[in-house]
Every structure is written in structure tokens, then in C-alpha cells.
């Protein structure tokens, strides 16, 4: 014990949470069974990937032809018949097929749901209910069931019945985030097509929706642990992503204005942005008074600190443009490495106030940076069906029950034999019959 205390914090915790040891440790959710009937929707798939990475048994139910989400892939690129977006979110799941539009398919689903802990679905609201396999029907068979439905407009409210489809780009637009992202128009007489509200490049709406679904499902699992009661959860990916907004509604309520689009500036913090440098782009910050002073010291411009001494001067957009130009004079005279070293040297040796430096990395450079591999943020795993693949792991390193990826995905219906035998006792003969009828 005494010896242990002498270790540095970093060494001590590394020994306990080193992700190389993940696979030797127990799993947090290995007592939970999830049925995922997401359809053409990566929010549902991400929610259940997350649960599966933490150890839940996830049975991914697709229609016999496969989920259309299997074709969500850049320019149609397929790897062994599977689109890359889907391939990334098939993690640790068992993949079965079942035709929920057939009577027999629904009966089989009821049997599975009777013994499941969680159901996740993404159909238009009321679809599962109409099929007789919605929460209303399932809770009678399984009162402890946690049932999570994801849809842009949710399960109630004036727009819930509108019938519009849930697509990531739409979730992003409705969330409000797009309205404050992207370049402002530089010259109003000649606006560029790119100077418009702009979405995130990834499926950020769907990912936020899936994350909120996972949080709510886990909170409901805790509540069920205490009370035995299940419940219904309604998640809109648009609202889930909209909850990530800095201050849209309150700003409008308080000041009757909307937050403008200011490109890579930030209306609440300056300096806090990307600057051009000799060989790329550097991020620099210095918002709070001591940090601003530190930045002005590093770039040897005490005059700037005198001219813009408080946040009230620094949060004026016209002043931002002036300060930006002045700071950029310094960054343009240096390479990224020189900037990084100058800042870190100041932080270490003078250290009054902190300036935070960073680089705009292309995803290819990110993939080449050693840090992410050492930390297993990125990992190349050997999948039994899909071969060698590179994936990003969940960020959590945990001492007792860390998440992990065991396999990356499965082909359509690949686990029919295993899952139906294990859950329902169906052998090859019965499965052959169901296959002939098109149920699986």
C-alpha cells in the first residue's frame, strides 16, 4: 500500500484502466438483453451499439432483405456487401431477420420481447402499435420492459403525426445547431454558395439521438432495478442534438435576437479560434483575463491587452476582427510546431494564465497520430467475417467494467440459427419452414 502511494497518478491509474486489459474484465450490462428493430436509422443502431459495447446482448432484427441502413455508405462503397456506416455500428450484435409485416413474424417477435429487457425501434410513430407489437401490447406481457422509440418529431405533440421521415440531415436542421454553424456572408452583394448554415459532416443528429437514448435506457434500467417497473421512452434525435446548443432559446427570450452565424469565431469567447500559420492552421485561445494576458505576452503584444482589457471589449464582433488580424500576423510568421512549442513553453515556465494550442488535423493525420493508438481510441481488429478493420472505440477507459468491441458486424441473418435456437428452441427444420414462408 505504501509503495503504491508513491507512484505518480498517471502510472497508478494506467495500471488499473489500461484498455489493453479490457477483455479480461467483466462487463457492465451482460445481464441485459436488447431487441433492436431500428429501420433505416443510425440513431437506433448507435444506441444499441453503445449498449452492446458495454456488454448487453443485442439482437438486431432486420427485415429478410436486410435493413436499408446497410446501404448508407460513401458513394455506394461496400465491404463484403455491407455499407461502411452500418458496418461501424454492427458491433457485438447478433443479426437475425424477421418479417414484422407477417403475422407469424409478429408472433415470434412477441415471444422474444416477452423475455427481453429493452426494445429499441425507429419506425414512424404508431407503426409497431398497429402491428400489435408496440409498447401498449408488450407491457402486458412484460411489465419490466423498457421500450425506446426514436423519431424526429417524437411520439406525441402537434407534429408527431406529420408522417415526415427521420433522416440525419433533417434532425440536424431542426435541432437548431445548423443555424449557428457555417461561414457568414462576407460580401452581401456576392454571397458564395458555401456561406450558408452548415451541418456537421458526420451523422451528428443521429449520434446525439442514439446517445440520449442510451442514457435514458440506462437510467430506466436503474429505476427498474429499484422498483421492478419498466417504461416507455420517446427520444427525438433533433431535440437530443438541440439540447447541445449553447444558448439559443434563452438568448431569443431574453434579447429578442437570434445567435448569428460567425464561422469559426465564438460569440461567447474570444480569442478562441483557428488561425492560419505557415504550414496549416493553429487553434489558440485566451479568453479569461489572465489567459488573454498570457497570449499577449507570448506574441509580445502587450498593447493588445491594454486595448481590449476585459471580456466586454473582447466579445464585440468588430473588435474580434481587429484582434484576429493582429494575432494572425504572429501566427503567419511561425510554423505550427513553433507556435505549439512557444505556448507550451510559456505554460510550463511562466504559467501565469494558460493558452491552449491545437492543430486542425485531417482525419488521415488523426489516424496516423500515435496518441490515439496508444490510448486505443483507434484500434484495428480482426473480425471473423469482415477481416481486418479500423474502428474508433468508445472513449471510456474503466477500471472494473470497460466497454469493448468483440466483432464489428454480422451479415444479414447470420445469427438466425444461434439466436432462434437459444431463445426459442427452433432447430434447422423449423427455420427452413420459416425461411420458405419468407418470415426470416
Amino acid at each position, binding site marked *: 500500500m505504501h509503495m503504491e502511494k508513491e507512484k505518480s497518478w498517471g502510472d497508478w491509474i494506467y495500471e488499473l484502466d489500461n484498455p489493453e486489459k479490457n477483455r479480461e474484465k467483466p462487463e457492465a450490462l451482460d445481464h441485459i438483453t436488447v431487441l433492436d428493430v431500428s429501420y433505416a436509422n443510425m440513431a437506433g443502431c448507435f444506441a444499441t451499439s453503445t449498449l452492446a459495447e458495454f456488454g448487453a446482448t443485442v439482437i438486431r432484427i432486420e427485415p429478410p432483405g436486410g435493413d*436499408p441502413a446497410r446501404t448508407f455508405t460513401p458513394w455506394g462503397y461496400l465491404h463484403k456487401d455491407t455499407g461502411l456506416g452500418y458496418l461501424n455500428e454492427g458491433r457485438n450484435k447478433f443479426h437475425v431477420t424477421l418479417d414484422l409485416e407477417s403475422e407469424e413474424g409478429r408472433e415470434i417477435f412477441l415471444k422474444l420481447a416477452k423475455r427481453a429487457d429493452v426494445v429499441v425501434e425507429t419506425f414512424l410513430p404508431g407503426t409497431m402499435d398497429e402491428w400489435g407489437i408496440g409498447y401498449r401490447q408488450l407491457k402486458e406481457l412484460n411489465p419490466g420492459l423498457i421500450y425506446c422509440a426514436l423519431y424526429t418529431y417524437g411520439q406525441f405533440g402537434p407534429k408527431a403525426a406529420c408522417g415526415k421521415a427521420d*433522416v440525419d440531415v433533417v434532425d440536424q436542421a431542426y435541432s437548431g445547431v445548423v443555424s449557428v454553424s457555417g461561414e457568414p456572408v462576407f460580401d452581401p452583394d456576392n454571397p458564395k454558395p458555401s456561406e450558408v448554415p452548415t451541418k456537421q459532416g458526420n451523422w451528428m443528429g443521429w449520434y446525439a439521438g442514439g446517445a440520449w437514448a442510451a442514457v435514458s435506457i440506462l437510467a430506466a434500467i436503474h429505476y427498474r432495478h429499484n422498483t421492478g417497473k419498466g417504461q416507455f421512452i420517446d427520444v427525438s434525435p433533433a431535440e437530443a442534438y438541440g439540447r447541445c446548443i449553447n444558448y439559443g432559446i434563452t438568448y431569443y427570450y431574453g434579447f429578442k435576437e437570434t445567435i448569428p452565424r460567425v464561422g469559426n469565431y465564438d460569440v461567447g469567447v474570444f480569442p478562441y479560434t483557428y488561425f492560419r500559420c505557415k504550414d496549416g492552421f493553429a487553434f489558440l485561445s485566451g479568453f479569461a483575463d489572465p489567459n488573454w494576458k498570457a497570449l499577449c505576452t507570448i506574441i509580445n503584444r502587450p498593447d493588445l491587452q491594454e486595448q481590449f482589457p476585459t471580456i466586454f471589449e473582447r466579445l464585440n464582433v468588430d473588435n474580434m476582427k481587429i484582434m484576429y488580424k493582429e494575432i494572425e500576423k504572429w501566427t503567419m510568421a511561425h510554423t505550427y510546431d513553433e507556435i505549439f512549442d512557444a505556448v507550451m513553453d510559456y505554460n510550463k515556465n511562466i504559467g501565469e494564465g494558460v493558452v491552449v494550442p491545437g492543430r486542425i488535423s485531417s482525419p488521415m493525420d488523426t489516424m496516423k497520430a500515435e496518441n490515439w493508438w496508444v490510448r486505443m481510441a483507434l484500434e484495428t481488429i480482426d473480425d471473423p467475417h469482415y477481416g481486418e478493420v479500423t474502428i474508433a472505440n468508445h472513449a471510456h477507459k474503466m477500471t472494473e467494467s470497460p466497454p469493448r468491441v468483440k466483432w464489428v458486424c454480422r451479415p444479414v441473418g447470420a445469427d438466425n440459427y444461434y439466436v432462434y435456437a437459444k431463445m426459442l428452441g427452433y432447430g434447422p427444420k423449423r427455420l427452413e419452414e420459416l425461411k420458405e414462408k419468407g418470415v426470416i
Partner: protein
Amino acid sequence: MAREEYFKWAESLLDPSKTFDKPEALADIKIVELCTLILGPSLPSYLSELGATVFKVELPGMGDTMRSLTPFAKFFNGAALGWLKEARNKYHLAIDVRVPEGVELFKELVKRADVVVENLRAGTMDRWGIGYRQLREINPGLIYIALNGFGQWGPYLERPSYDAIAQSESGMAWISGFPDQLPMKAGIWLADYYGGLVGAVGVLAALAYRDKTGKGQFIEYSQAENLMRAMDWTWLYQHFTGKMRERYGNRDVSICPADIVPDKDGQMVAIGAATDQQFQGLCQAMGKPELAQDPRFATHLERLKEENAVELLSMIRAWVAEKTYAEIDELAGKYGFGAHKVANGKDHFEDEHLRARNFTYYVDDPIYGELYEEGIAPKLSETPGRIKWAGKPVGFDNEYVLKRFLGLKTKKIKYLKEKNVIGKWVDVPPGRKPPEGWDGKSGVLLV
């Protein structure tokens, strides 16, 4: 008819007006927060909406830097809007944890808590004697999460970080924005808010594990790594093709059609069809049902091919340019494709749908008055989320928490105040003290 009945049922099941008649999922969970800015504070804020009791510990006087963060330095009733967003439902304590008596108070809180959330530099808490190494000795069931830019060990250990660094170093900024513009930082603190959210998944998974085994644990969490996990097909694409993922503006190159284009009035509208059925609907709405049979567009894999996608998206752009958003909206509902205009804070404030769903949430706060906020994202039928109050000035709840939860005597509390172990707000800079015109007692617990 069946659908109508479903919506009635769903509305009665999830009715937000019944929220305060129902229990809370995390009512038995206590969280101690020693955090600044957003990445750390957002996590307990999310869990507080689901019922957790959160003790936010700040340093006396200035408190959290976040209390300064507000657009254009405009404060709402004395509160910074950035801070207000994450201050909800918390008990606000100011304890100087850098002195031994402050450390003792902090430990007494942690003894009674289930979760500790911190986002200081790696090793700071350990140095102060209140890191996981020390706290697990006094509370073995403790779940402790440390969030920051790059984690507790590894090559980037020395590097400080911010939201924008996580956005840029992960590659997320690079893949966002238009090809002819700089890589784009999201207009929100994405790595912070989304970081706190996925961080909460880890805390709740650890809670599920503790419910089974009684064991607590430490969770280490890097916000940059979290964004990398959300970058969908990026890593697989680069792995298989050796090509780099670039930025493609508002077009989604993995779902076609999906884009954001101007309508007749210049309003930007997102349009998307993710399945053949949705696409057929869109073609009908466009008055071109034959497009869905055209071999270039008949299947999703065909539509995704570059030249077909460009062709199709330009047809859609031309079609939307002739319609108003109201027309598009109606057609999208009728034909089942996806469409929504780019909504802003005003749209959210005025949106009856979002109000009915408690996303646009009305708070009548005893200190900061009436306000509206981005409210509750998930709707839970048995244990709905809620906002109880908007936030408190620095050290506002000291007396109440020390008395109720730690059982300290009035005399002891007075002593701690005199020794500056606990304290309250300073008047300057703004954002720390109660608003102008505060009556000196509204919102005070145990007056």
C-alpha cells in the same frame, strides 16, 4: 383511426403536465461535481434532469469561469447564458478545496455520494488529496469520472484542451464545412455537450454494474476520443480505400438524397430520403414519379454514385427553389420523405410542438425570474425529466447543504465562513452574485 388512438395513448402516457406527479429515475443518486466550463458540468446537469441530486462545488468568490460565458457579454438578469444552461437543478456550494478543512468537507460530501465528476487537469485532484486514489478508500462504491481533452495518461498528457481542440484534433472539423472554406468548427461547444452526454453513458453503465456487484470504479474520458467514436464511416473508409475523408458541405455523400438547399424565399431547407420508399415519395411530390424507376436512381447504391447524386441533387435544388417551405413541409408529410427548415432560437421558442414536448422549457425561477431554455430531450413515461430551478449564485446553498446533508452545527458553519473555507459570491466580475433587485431571501433554503 388506429394511429389517432395511438397518439392519444402516447400523449396521455407521456403528458408533460403530469411530470411532477411522477417519480425520478435517479432520485437515489447523489453526485459531487468539481468542474469548470461545460464538458464536466454538463454531465451532472443531464443526470440532474433525470433526478440525481447534484452538489456543484466551486471556489468561493469567482466560482466557475463559465459564469462569465455569455454571447456578446450580455447577461440575463445577472446570469451568463452559457452558465445558465448547465446550472439547472444543482445545489451550488463554494468550498476552498485547496485548504485542509475544505478537503475534509469535500470528503464528507463524497462519503455520502454515489458519483464524483471532475474535469481538472490530470492529477490535480490526486495532488489535492481528493483524487480517486484517496476517495475510493473512504467510499469503495464510488463511481468517479474524470473528463478532459486527452485523458489521464499517454503522449498528450501535458496538453491542456478545449472543446475546439477536440473538434480539430479528432478530425471532426476537417470533415465539416464546404470544400472551398476552412474546416468548420460547430457553432456550439459540441465536444463539450456531446462529451458530457456520452460520459453520462459510462457513469450509468458503471451504476448498472454497481447495482449488480456493489463495486464502484474509475472512468477516464477524453472528449477528443469521444468525437472520433461519432465520426461514423470515416475510419473504415480510410482503412479500406487509403483515401482521406474530406468535407462535402451540406450534402451527405453516404445517403442520397440528403442536402440543405434554399427555398423560394431563401429559407434553407433540409431534404432527405433514406429509403427507396421515401425516395419514391419525394419523386411523386416533385411530380416526377418516373425518376424512381430511372436506372440511375432506382436503388440507393445507384443514387449514391457521384454523377447520379450530383444530377439528382441539382434537380431537387431546382425544385425546392420554386416552392415555399410551407409547401415542402406539407408534401413531405403527405409523401413521407424528410424535410425541415433550418431552425433557430426564435423558431424553437415559437414552436408549439417543442413547447408541448418540454424541449422548449419554461422555468419560473425564484432568483433569476421567468425564462425559457432548451429543456428535456428524452421523454420517459414513468420517470420524466424536469427542471426544478435554473441555477444559483456562488455558494448560495452552503448553509442548507452543510446542515442537511453533512449535519454541521450552525456554529461550525459560521466558523468555516470566518476562516474562508466556505464562502459566497464576489460582485465583480458579473455572473456571480444574485441579480439586481433580488430581495435577499427568494430562493434561499433554510432561511
